[in-house]
């Protein structure tokens, strides 16, 4: 365990740090890190995809109801709001999928540690961007 650097901001927690104890995130000494952003985004996209179930219900529900109802729903999905929602849904789903695989890797004990988490985080950001770009490109090409 390396000696923690002294910082005046952390002075009140000096004792805690010296003993190598973990420190909770603290508002006055907050520093943005990619890993924490990716972590909360997994939760936000997970809840987002659950909410997306409502859209799936509208899609399949109107299709099952018959051609007229389905056409009305298609009008909505083809509108700018509808297209935006579908783009957001696909981006969130693909993020949660790629990020979920990263979580599963940790579950089998791979990629622990600050450096491992940072490196897999960069891989995740790239994989998500490529997957989303490919899906959107195919979608717009077929539109």
């Amino acid at each position, binding site marked *: 365990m390396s000696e923690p650097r002294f910082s005046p901001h952390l002075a009140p927690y000096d004792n805690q740090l010296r003993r190598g104890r973990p420190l909770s995130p603290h508002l006055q000494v907050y520093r943005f890190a990619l890993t924490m952003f990716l972590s909360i985004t997994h*939760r936000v996209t*997970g*809840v987002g*995809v*659950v909410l997306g*179930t409502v859209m*799936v*219900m509208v899609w*399949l*529900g109107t*299709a*099952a109801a*018959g*051609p007229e109802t*389905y*056409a009305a729903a*298609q009008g909505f*999905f*083809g509108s700018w709001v509808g297209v935006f929602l*579908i783009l957001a849904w*696909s981006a969130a*789903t*693909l993020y949660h*999928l790629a990020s*979920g*695989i990263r*979580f*599963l890797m940790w*579950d089998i004990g791979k990629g622990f540690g600050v450096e491992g988490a940072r490196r897999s985080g960069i891989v995740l950001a790239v994989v998500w961007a490529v997957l989303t770009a490919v*899906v959107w490109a*195919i*979608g717009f090409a*077929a*539109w």
Partner: protein
Amino acid sequence: MALKMQSPLGRARGRGAAKSGIAHHWFMERLTAVALVPLMLWFVAAVIANFGASHAEISAFFGQPWNAALMIMTILFGLYHGISGLMIVLGDYIHGPAKHLTLALAVPALAVLAGIYLIVCVLILALGG
């Protein structure tokens, strides 16, 4: 002194306040996650491929047995995984009596309702509605 043939972990299991359950939920969340990797890749592709499809086209799509089967699998695994994940998130932010009402009753009830509704829709389309 009697010889203890049980491991310390074996003796500790099930003795917590919850008695049982959390390891099962943890495992099921991961099991469904693994199944959802191919299923959701298929589903995202299906949504994109059917964007702007006519009613005849969408009926024909789910008229294919494999598409209907994969859709029902996605609904079952997705809702199970999504809802049990949502309950963990809600449990982190809701407290007091409302917590039990939400987690034990409202959310599971809505999930079962949504799941059955979606499967019925797929079957109607698949069987030529």
